């Protein structure tokens, strides 16, 4: 059973009271309880059942401008009192930093909106098994599929965030996730692909039959890939990976990267960094949104933020600490973005595919080849060759490379945005990049 607010409040208060007694001038604390249940299937048989019951506590103590923190999963008072002592001792000898402080009181979240982030429904193990059987039988579409794996996880979380300025708030959230991975084989060579869905509420879950079928169809479509010649070509990013461009942007406009001078977008506020029809929004208030929240990890109220407006960079993602360094107020982005997305473009998916005679359509990238200091980008990729708007053959063992500064200015968006993750983008074309193959 998920612990109620009262239980978590009591622990938070214990930490604040005891830290004060030992000399802390300011205190922030977060207490989390989570319960999760996962079931996984492989080749139509139960493979693993996993139940987790976890506590986590994070305490930060300040003595004026000095700061230190501790984490613990053992919430017993005997353990916490020892850790609080340790935290205060470390705080005393840590050098001062003028930017260390709790958030401004007037920025704190005052009211909890009901964003419908919690569904109390419990799906029993037997129900999960039934769901997964449907996923897997839908994935077994023909004998090219040689292995299927499917999983269902139910996660529930409750938390309290409190500080010594009197802030104390928290709420429950839930997540129901199901996925299917299918392996296909032809002439001894194998390919793997997947489909997945993650929802706040159980009844919004994708149909199990769709999850299985889509994973299998994708895995079969990838069979028999070719390696292509190295060339400059327009690259279309499937929705599964186009969101990665936004993650890079978020990283590059975080107050920490800007303040530390380690972002290729430093000093670009007010400048055109995308073409003028591109809008990028971070909205924490979407009902049932996977990235929705009432306040950030410091308790600062979060509101809708336009990061890019008609191609112009408008806002950084600011927390209290780096905000102070930049002389800017927190905009509630401690802990990062919420529901971050590109507004839809003008073209249908099919129109986008026909913009040029030939494109490379990428469905998966591997490696961590983005450098936010220089903007250089180089990753491994696989996908399909598109000629005259139609898929002609699968492609693999290639890399795609460019620099984000150029890539941003060459983006064309389709109009097929959907909210499947916390960060979402429609299908996206970058007009010219370098492909390395043969």
């Amino acid at each position, binding site marked *: 059973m998920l612990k109620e607010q009262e239980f978590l409040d009591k622990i938070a208060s214990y930490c604040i009271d005891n830290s004060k007694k030992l000399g802390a001038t300011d205190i922030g604390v977060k207490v989390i309880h989570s319960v999760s249940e996962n079931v996984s299937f*492989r080749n139509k*048989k139960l*493979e*693993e*059942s*996993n*139940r*987790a*019951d*976890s*506590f986590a506590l994070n305490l930060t103590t300040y003595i004026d401008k000095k700061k*230190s*923190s*501790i*984490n*613990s*999963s*053992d919430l017993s008072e005997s*353990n916490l009192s020892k*850790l609080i002592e340790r*935290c205060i001792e*470390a705080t005393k*000898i*840590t*050098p001062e*930093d003028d930017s260390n402080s709790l958030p401004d009181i007037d920025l704190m979240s005052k009211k909890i909106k009901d964003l419908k982030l919690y569904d109390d429904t419990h799906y029993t*193990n037997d129900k999960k098994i039934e769901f997964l059987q449907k996923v897997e039988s839908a994935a077994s579409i023909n004998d090219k599929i*040689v*292995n299927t794996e499917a999983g269902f996880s139910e996660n529930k979380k409750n938390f309290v965030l409190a500080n010594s300025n009197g802030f104390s708030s928290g709420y429950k959230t839930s997540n129901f996730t199901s996925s299917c991975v299918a*392996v296909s084989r032809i002439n*001894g*060579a*194998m390919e*793997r692909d997947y489909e997945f869905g993650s929802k706040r509420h159980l009844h919004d879950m994708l149909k199990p039959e769709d999850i299985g079928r889509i994973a299998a169809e994708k895995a079969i479509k990838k069979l028999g*890939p070719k390696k292509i010649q*190295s*060339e*400059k070509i327009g690259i279309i990013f499937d929705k599964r990976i186009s969101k990665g461009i936004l993650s890079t942007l978020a990283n590059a406009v975080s107050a920490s990267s800007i*303040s*530390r*001078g380690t972002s290729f977008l430093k000093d670009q506020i007010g400048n055109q960094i995308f073409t003028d029809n591109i809008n990028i929004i971070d909205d924490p208030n979407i009902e049932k949104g996977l990235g929705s929240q009432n306040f950030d990890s410091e308790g600062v109220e979060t509101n809708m933020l336009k990061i890019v407006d008609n191609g112009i960079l408008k806002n950084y993602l600011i927390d209290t600490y780096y905000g102070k*360094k930049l002389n800017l107020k927190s905009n509630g982005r401690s802990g990062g973005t919420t529901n971050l997305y590109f507004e839809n473009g003008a073209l249908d998916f099919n129109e986008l595919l026909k913009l040029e005679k030939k494109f490379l359509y990428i469905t998966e990238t*591997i*490696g*961590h*080849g983005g450098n936010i*200091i*220089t903007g*250089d980008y*180089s990753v*491994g990729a*696989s996908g399909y060759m598109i000629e005259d708007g139609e898929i002609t053959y699968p492609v693999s*063992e290639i*890399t795609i*490379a460019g620099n984000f500064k150029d890539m941003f200015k060459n983006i064309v968006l389709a109009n097929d945005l959907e909210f499947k993750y916390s960060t979402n983008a429609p299908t996206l074309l970058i007009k010219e990049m*370098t*492909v*390395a*193959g*043969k």
Partner: protein
Amino acid sequence: MSNFFKNSDIDSSQAEAIVTETLKNCDDGELYLENHKSETIVLDDNKIKSSNYNSDRGYGFRAVTGEVVAYSHSNDISKESLNRSSDNLKDTLKSKKGTYNHEIPKTNSKYYENINPIENKTFNSKLDLLNKVNNYLRSKGSIVNQVTANFLGEHKSIEIIRSDSEVLRDDRPLVRFNVSVVLEKEGKKETGVYGIGGRQSYDDYLKDDNWKKVCDEAFRIAHVNLDSKPAPAGEMKVVLGPGWPAILIHEAIGHGLEGDFNRKKTSAFHNLMGQQVASEGVTIVDDGTLHQRRGSLTIDDEGTPTENTVLIENGILKNYMQDRLNARLMGTKSTGSGRRESYKHVIMPRMRNTMMLSGKYSQDEMISSVDKGIFAVSFGGGQVDITSGKFVFNCTEAYEIVNGKIGSPIKGATLIGDGPSILKEVSLVGDDMKLDPGIGTCGKAGQGVPVGVAQPSILINKMTVGGTKL
């Protein structure tokens, strides 16, 4: 003596009885208890940015029958919690007809001391050293734009309670010291990162001004990159330097030789046992027994003593890496490769220290044999698709080779290859095998575990370099 039940309403013998009762008619399983302390201290932007102490304790209770694993974990080491977990496991494994395998080898070897690196260097002396690092690097001139340095220390005590009161214990120290520097010249910025570590105390690594060498190396890499030009795009010859570039071995073939993927036949290597998968001069081992190395373990997380497992011998595929479950299902023995990130995670076969052994050629011979190619000295991370066998890794220091000579440094680029065929393209194996400096963390299915790699210089005949210059 167990410390896990000290403040609990349950004692060791009661816990052992629950384990024995739960695992009746199971093939395998155990109660795994873990007490993990860690400390992170970060200097960044001329300030001690954060100091964090983490105390995590809990258990993971596993019951295995046939191919099915039931798992339950919690922070609450109490009678009620263990009984609830036990009920959960029994409920999942309704019809079990297994025979518990009591066979678990014993070891007297120890590959590291039971020290707590967090406590045996004072907090003040760590802060002091971080400030020295900052001052030392910034004294190298105004091109130094940013310095980040950190200490990551941990101590993990584990206890494994198997059926019929069989108890195994291990205490594992681990440290890492890391320096990252950003240089700026004429508007161009580049980063250099270097670190050292392993299963000893900090001062074993940092004594005699060793920390300055870490700083110098980070500075050198960033400095080289300031003059880098765009990397080439396309297939060419690649010479890899010794040491850390062995993450190529880790990604290209290491993951593909883990037992689970081969039992499930989802690895590109699953039908290649006994076959030639590499050039003749290539021998690759995965060794958990190297003293004080980051990837070493006295016993694995199932209690099996680790060993030096030969994966590929003179080009022939000899062994997979196994945990107990996959070994049992494949009719072989655990290689002591059963690992988990923590009590919150299930066991999987994982790498420890993966090494390609030395051959007979010199690095100079390799470079002088290349007309057009690249020489890759240092890497960031890598990744592999087990099923298709395609893998990548990112160069962080590399040079072009023109007519047998090392030329200009090139920008960071991703290299991509095909696991099962890349080792057949290794035409020369160097005589200069070197271990990495002790910084690797391997990720698999969301679990990170510390690992090591080693290799000599090697020449690869053909690989795709993912630059921008055609």
